[in-house]
C-alpha cells in the first residue's frame, strides 16, 4: 500500500496527504492568475502615464494651433502672450512666435553645459584614474550632493549670491550684466548638472577594458596620454550619450530659470542679458488666475509638447548610443 513518504502524522492520515501538499485547486490557480494580471496592470501604469502625457499635450496643442498657425508659432520672432483687457487693445491677440524662447533656452543650456561638461569630465577622470580609493569614497558622494539639492535652492542661491556677484563683477570691468542674466542661471544650472555628467563619464571610463589601458602604459605613455589617447576615445560614445542626457535635463529644468532668468522675450545671444526660456513661459502662462481656454494657456501646452518631444528625442538618442557602445566590450 503506498504511503506518503513525507508524512510524519498518524497512519490514518497517510493516504490523505496534508492540505498544503495537494495539487493547487482550480480556484487557487484562478486567484494566482488574477494576482499576476494585477501585477501586469501595475506595470502598465508607466505606459498609461506616457499615453496620458502625449494625449493631453497633443489635444491642447491642436486646439492652440487652430487659433495660432503652427508656422507662426515655430518661426515667429515675437513673443508677447498678453491677454486683452479690451477687445480693441493694441496687440490684443498676443504674439506667439516662440523663436526667442528657443534661443533663450539654448543660450542658457549652452552656458550650463560649458560649465558642466569640462568640470564633470575632469572630476570623473581624476576620481576614476588618479584618486586614492579612500579619497574617492569621500569625494564622490560629496559631489553627488549637488544633484540631490532641490532646484529651488539653486534658484535662491542664484538670486542672492551669483547674480549680484556677476553684476558687481561686470560693473568693475565695464560690462553691464543684467540682474537676471542668462549667465547666472546657466552657471548655477551647470553646477547642478556636474554630478550627472561625472557619474555617466565614470561609468563609461570604468567600462573601458583594462587591457587597453595597460597596453598604452606598456608602450610608455604617461597616465594623461593614456587617458587622452586611449580611454576617452574608447569611452566617447558613453560620454556623448551622457552629454545628451545632461542636455535634455538642462533644457527641461524649470525652477532655476523661473527664479534666476527673466521674463523678457528678447531675441539675443548675449549671455549677459536677460532671456526667457520655454519652461519659464509655461510656468508664467499657467500660474495666476485666468480662463483655461484662452490661447495663452493653450500656448503653454504647445510649448510643453515641444519640450517633451525634444527631450524624448535626446533621451532615446542617448540610450541608443550608450547601448550600442556597450555591445562592443561585453
Amino acid at each position, binding site marked *: 500500500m503506498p504511503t506518503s513518504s513525507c508524512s510524519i502524522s498518524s497512519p490514518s492520515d497517510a493516504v490523505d496527504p496534508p492540505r498544503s501538499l495537494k495539487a493547487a485547486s482550480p480556484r487557487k490557480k484562478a486567484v494566482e492568475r488574477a494576482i499576476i494580471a494585477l501585477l501586469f496592470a501595475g*506595470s502598465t501604469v508607466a505606459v498609461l502615464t506616457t499615453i496620458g502625457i502625449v494625449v493631453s*499635450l497633443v489635444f491642447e496643442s491642436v486646439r492652440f494651433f487652430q487659433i495660432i498657425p503652427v508656422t507662426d508659432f515655430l518661426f515667429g520672432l515675437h513673443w508677447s502672450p498678453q491677454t486683452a483687457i479690451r477687445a480693441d487693445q493694441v496687440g490684443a491677440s498676443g504674439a506667439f512666435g516662440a523663436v526667442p524662447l528657443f534661443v533663450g533656452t539654448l543660450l542658457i543650456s549652452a552656458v550650463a553645459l560649458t560649465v558642466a561638461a569640462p*568640470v564633470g569630465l575632469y572630476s570623473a577622470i581624476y576620481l576614476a584614474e588618479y584618486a586614492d580609493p579612500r579619497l574617492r569614497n569621500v569625494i564622490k558622494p560629496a559631489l553627488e550632493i549637488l544633484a540631490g539639492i532641490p532646484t529651488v535652492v539653486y534658484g535662491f542661491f542664484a538670486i542672492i549670491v551669483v547674480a549680484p556677484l556677476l553684476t558687481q563683477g561686470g560693473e568693475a570691468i565695464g560690462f553691464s550684466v543684467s540682474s537676471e542674466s542668462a549667465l547666472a542661471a546657466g552657471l548655477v544650472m551647470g553646477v547642478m548638472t556636474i554630478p550627472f555628467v561625472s557619474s555617466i563619464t565614470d561609468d563609461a571610463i570604468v567600462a573601458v577594458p583594462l587591457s587597453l589601458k595597460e597596453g598604452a602604459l606598456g608602450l610608455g605613455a604617461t597616465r594623461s596620454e593614456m587617458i587622452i589617447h586611449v580611454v576617452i576615445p574608447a569611452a566617447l560614445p558613453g560620454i556623448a550619450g551622457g552629454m545628451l542626457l545632461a542636455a535634455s535635463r538642462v533644457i527641461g529644468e524649470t525652477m532655476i530659470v523661473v527664479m534666476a532668468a527673466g521674463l523678457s522675450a528678447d531675441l539675443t545671444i548675449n549671455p549677459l542679458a536677460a532671456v526667457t526660456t520655454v519652461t519659464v513661459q509655461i*510656468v508664467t502662462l499657467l500660474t495666476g488666475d485666468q480662463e483655461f481656454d484662452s490661447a495663452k494657456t493653450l500656448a503653454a501646452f504647445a510649448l510643453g509638447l515641444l519640450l517633451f518631444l525634444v527631450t524624448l528625442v535626446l533621451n532615446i538618442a542617448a540610450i541608443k548610443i550608450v547601448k550600442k557602445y556597450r555591445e562592443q566590450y561585453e
Partner: protein
Amino acid sequence: MSNVEHIEKGMPRRHRAEKRFRFFGVAAICSGLLFLGVMFTSIIIKGAGAFSQTVVRLEIAVDPDLVSGADYAGLVKAALRKDFPEVSERGDKLQLYKLVSDGAAHELRRMVVDDPKIVGKTVIVWVPASDDVDMAFKKGLTENRRLSDRQLIWIKTLSGKGRMETKFNAAFFTSGDSREPELAGVATALTGSIFSMVVCLALALPLGVMAAVYLEEFAAKNRWTEFIEVNINNLAAVPSIVFGLLGLAIFLNFFHLPRSAPLVGGMVLALMTLPTIIIAGRSALRAVPPSIREAALSVGASPLQTVFHHTLPLAMPGVMTGAIIGLARALGETAPLLMIGMVAFIVDIPHSLLDPATALPVQVFLWADSPERAFEEKTAAAILVLLVFLLLMNMAAVVLRKKFEIRW
C-alpha cells in the same frame, strides 16, 4: 640623435602636460566642492536669523471699551504711547506703532478670548517686533536705512530697559504663511508637503513594487515588455514640468479634482517617482540569487508564493532604499506643483488631502519672490528645514542599505 635622446628630450614637456592634466582634475573637483560649500554656508548664514525672533515687552491696559469694539490694535498703540509720552505728532506716532508687529493685536485678542477676566486689568505681554525692527535688533542696531533715527532711539531705549530680547522663533514652525515676514511660518507648507508625500508613497510604492515584480519575475521577453521598459526609462528623464502639465490636463481639467490640493500634488509626484521605484525594485529583485527561487520552487511553492514569500522579502531593503530616494526627490520638486495650483497664498494649515495647501519648496519659491527683505531670511530658513528633511531621508536610505543589505 638617437631614439633614446629624442624621447628623453620630450620627457620634461610630457611630464608638464601630465601635471597640468592632474591639476585640471583637482581644480574641477575643488570648484564643485567649493560651490557646494559656499552655497551651504551662505544659506545657513542667511537663514540662521529666522530661527530667533525679537520680542518687545509691553504693559497693556486692557481697556474694556476698546475690547468691546474689538480694537486690539488700539490697545497696543495706547501702550506704546504711554511708554513714549513725548511723541505727539501723527507721523511720529505712526513710526512708533511700526515698532511692533501687527501680530501683537492678534496675540492680545487670543489672550482675551482665552481669559476674559483680564479685561480692565493691566497685563504684561511679550509681543513680536515688526520685521524691520527684528532684523535691525538681531544685527546689533547699526546703521539701517529701513528705520528712522527716531525709531532707532526708541529701540535703544526699550532694549536699555531690558524690554527687548530675542527668543527662539517657535511660531516659524507653528504658523502658516503671512504677508508680515515676522509672522510667517512654514507650518502650512510642511503639512502640505507631508500630505503630498503620504499620497505619493501610498500610490507609488505598491504600484512600483507590482510593476517591478511583474517585469522581473513574470514578464515574457517580448516586444510589449520591451516597450514598457523603454517607457519607464524615458519617463525617468521627462522634465518634471511636463508631469505638471499632465496633472493639470488630466486630474484637474478632466477629472475636476480640486486645485491646490495635496491629493493631486501627491498623485503627480507619484507618477514622477514611479520610474525610480520600479528601476530600484528591479535591480533589488535581480540581486536575489536564483538559488532562492529554485529552492522554493523545488519544494512545491507556486511561482507567486516563491516571489511573495521569498524573493520579495529579501529584495525589500533595496526597494525601500529606492523608494526613500525617490521620495526625497519628490519632496524637493517644485515645478509640477506650480502647474496644479499649489502655489497660492495659504494661511490656514490644511486638515485634509483636499484642502488647499502649498509645499515646502513652493513656499521657498514664493518667499524668494517677495520684495520684503525679511523674507530673504525666512526663505533661507525654509530651505534649511527642507534640507534637514532631505538629509534625514537620505540618511535613512543609507542606514537601511547598510543594515539590511545582503551580499550573496
